[in-house]
């Protein structure tokens, strides 16, 4: 009986605990750490890649003053932007961020992604993945 149940849940694309499994356009959290003065610029830029929800936290960097100066940064005030982004838009977003980090004066930063494991609510999932169809 347990085996039958397992087979049928696999056919439905569900995990053994009954949750739906997403195999296309998984969501990730894009974490972008930049100079605080550039936070709004980067948030607008990330939003242009179909990101519908972002949160920004203000904090401080811990790098020594010599390294900051070498990187062209004047102070240690930082903004950490958390953006929920679909896997399909990620390569373009990261490529563009990398270019901005290199070319914008005082715009140096780092960005990385952390995979999202679960989410509850179909409409929330569609909102976060900008699925308008």
């Amino acid at each position, binding site marked *: 009986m347990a085996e039958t149940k397992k087979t049928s849940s696999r056919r439905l694309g569900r995990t053994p605990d009954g949750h739906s499994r997403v195999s296309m356009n998984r969501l*990730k959290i894009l974490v972008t750490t930049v100079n605080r003065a550039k936070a709004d610029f980067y948030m607008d830029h990330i939003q242009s890649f179909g990101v519908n929800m972002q949160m920004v936290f203000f904090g401080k*960097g*811990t790098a020594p003053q010599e390294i900051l100066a070498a990187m062209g940064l004047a102070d240690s005030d930082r903004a*950490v932007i958390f953006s929920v982004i679909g896997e399909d838009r*990620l390569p373009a977003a990261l490529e563009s961020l*990398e270019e901005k*980090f290199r070319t914008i004066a005082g715009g140096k930063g*780092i960005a990385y992604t952390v995979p999202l494991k679960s989410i509850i609510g179909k409409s929330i999932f569609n909102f976060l993945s900008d699925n308008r169809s």
Partner: protein
Amino acid sequence: MSTSNHELIMCIVNTGFSETVMEAAKDAGARGGTILNGRGTANKEAESFFHIAIQPEKEVVMILVDSKIKDAVLHALYQKAGLDTMGQGIAFSLPVDEVVGLTPWKAEEKDGKVSAQSSTAKNG
């Protein structure tokens, strides 16, 4: 863009102990981190039952590190800023898929051995 060998270490400590965290992390090979301020919550009933007071003001230290030194950094944080210390810290790591913007870096030799071989995080 690089498919990374990095992990994100998050360490939540009492306010004022982020320097202890960063010192421990740097000794284990990390390069820098970002400190955020936060407020912790605790079960009031449990606090009075166990006769302990939880300081609500917290600092969250985010450190991106090479996977190779992740265990060493977590171990150092546990020793220097763990729950048995004044910092009352907890630390955990999250997987990181892609990284951009990291400056290539090589650690200086310390006590005859290199503390971190490749680029670890510098986000400060």
